[in-house]
């Protein structure tokens, strides 16, 4: 297989794997920019993946070909509501945000599996009839080299993800809301003095992160696995968290990092049919994305420091 053929093979798979990571990492950016550490992204993604599949299964007859897209909205809403738990605990009740996030992760998986067993009477759901479709973009896919790499077999969700990253950048850096969001995450007391409702902004940010992680989860389950079980999400949320840190809490940076991690995951899928890489036993290949993440954190980004007020509840009047 020539190098170019490998690229044609790898690029679409990488982008497909990156889409859920982009959405979830963007969610992380919103939450952490406001000063709320959200390690619960994994659990929120699990919830999204579960709701996406269940909605798809039950409403296929009603909505037909539009089902996967409406399922994304359903997953978004449910995960947003679910993330309120994290918001209440870490903002109003001043809980340790990492601990509350861990609870969200455990709760998300447990509730999803509990409901799966209740509804389907087995450990995983049925397969959906209609997954998120991929298509060739007419015209653009005829461009030499770039065409087959970027515009053949594109999932609509991948385009959505890239659009979402740009919108997130605009919202965080170009709108009054974004300015407030960042102010609250850096110096909540100063923001409070200027009349910004610190906790209200943080609530909104956490709910946005839940909504985006829900979409991410539903995209993953409706493109990659097409059913839901205990191992469906298996670390995607944590990888999105790493992408957010790798991207230094910037939407576009997070998108770039997510594409890198998508590539690493594509290697594990496509790897066995590529020369050199197929020599590596699959078990080690599965560990590769995580090894790359550690290496990336250790080697390439230099010092990563999040928003100043990250992880600390804002208590009025205390210094």
């Amino acid at each position, binding site marked *: 297989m020539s190098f170019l053929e490998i690229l044609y093979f790898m690029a679409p798979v990488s982008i497909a794997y990156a889409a859920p990571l982009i959405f979830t990492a963007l969610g992380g950016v919103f939450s952490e920019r406001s000063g709320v550490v959200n390690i619960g992204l994994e659990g929120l993604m699990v919830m999204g993946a579960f709701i996406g599949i269940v909605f798809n299964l039950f409403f296929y007859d009603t909505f037909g070909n539009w089902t996967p897209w409406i399922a994304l909205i359903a997953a978004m809403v449910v995960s947003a509501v679910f993330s309120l738990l994290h918001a209440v605990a870490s903002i109003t009740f001043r809980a340790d945000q990492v601990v509350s996030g861990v*609870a969200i992760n455990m709760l998300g998986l*447990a509730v999803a599996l509990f409901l799966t067993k209740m509804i389907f009477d087995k450990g995983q759901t049925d397969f959906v009839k209609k997954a998120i479709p991929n298509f060739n973009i007419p015209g653009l896919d005829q461009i030499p080299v770039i065409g087959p790499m970027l515009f053949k077999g594109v999932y609509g969700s991948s385009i959505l993800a890239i659009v979402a990253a740009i919108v997130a950048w605009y919202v965080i850096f170009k709108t009054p809301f974004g300015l407030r969001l960042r102010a609250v995450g850096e110096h909540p007391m100063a923001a409070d003095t200027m009349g910004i409702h610190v906790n209200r902004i943080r609530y909104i940010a956490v709910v946005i992160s839940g909504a985006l992680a829900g979409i991410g989860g539903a995209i993953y389950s409706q493109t990659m696995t097409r059913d839901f079980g205990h191992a469906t999400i298996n670390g995607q949320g944590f990888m999105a968290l790493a992408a957010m840190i790798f991207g230094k809490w910037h939407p576009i940076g997070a998108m770039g990092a997510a594409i890198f991690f998508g590539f690493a995951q594509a290697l594990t899928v496509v790897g066995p049919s590529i020369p050199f890489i197929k020599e590596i036993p699959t*078990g080690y290949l*599965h*560990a590769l994305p995580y090894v790359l993440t550690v290496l990336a954190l250790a080697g390439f980004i230099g010092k990563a420091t999040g928003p100043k007020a990250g992880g600390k509840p804002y208590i009025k009047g205390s210094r």
Partner: protein
Amino acid sequence: MSNRMINILVPVISVILGLLVGAIVMAVSGYDPILGYTALWNGIFGDSYAIGETIRQITPYILAGLAVAFAFRTGLFNIGVEGQLIVGWFAAVYVGAAFDLPKVIHLPLSILAGAAAGALWAFLPGLLKAKMKIHEVIVTIMMNYIALHVVNALIKTWSGGGDKTERILDSASLRSDFLASLTDYSRLHYGIIIALMMVVLMWFLLEKTTMGFELKSVGFNENASEYGGMKIGKNIILAMVISGAFAGLAGAMEGLGTFGNMYTRGGFTGIGFDGIAVALLGANTPLGVIFGAVLFGSLKYGALNMPNAAQIPEEIVQIVIALVIFFVACGYAIRLLLSKISKKKEAK
């Protein structure tokens, strides 16, 4: 109400709230909560076999709880107990099966191999934290997945493509005919004694040694400790390594005591993550960890009886455990409520 009283009441109230919400979830889902909790109770205490198995389940929970609690006390969040447990399990089984030695040497060596593997797995996050200030949470999470996949691959290589390792030799086994016969031939093994010894060891390390003082001090305030002449990096790495060794021991208990071998896994054991719950409920104290482990270990084992006896998915217990962590984390709200109640009483 005294501070000490409140400190004890917060976890107790959290557990009660967790069980209550669990009951509500069951009721809303159309199950009978009383039937469910009866099945849970019988699963834990039903007969001597169940009690033996429950104690067996508590063993790794104590060690996983110690691992998380030790790290917490030194200002670190070791979320990688799961991965350290998996490599510890594998290392213990490997040494237990690959060497042929007299029991007095073989068993301690296998146990130490587990602890050493866990320590090694925690060393890297410690090193990255100490030298490059990379947050240990994210690195340990990644190390969990690396452990899972690498150990699966190692088992495949070792067994020539199979999905389980060889069995350990009798000279490396923690199995105890005496404890088994006492509990109607459950898989209860000597590991519980090791776990309790480790509880004492953690207390001694933290409260009675200079090393423990330094570790705690660095966790409280890095700058002040550095000013006091302590080496920050060394202490962070040491704390992670000790925590990892506890986690590796938990794996060794599973490998040498409960199972006697290791299978390839599709997902995590969950013991490492439940260890977080154990440590939190026990307020990160050695004695508290025992209580946390007894509670969650019992719940976890008893839950296995629920699908059969009450047709309720066992995941309900995982929901309860998650809720308990959630409520403990919200301790501020419970404290606020308690102080309001006690103030009202005083006013009367």
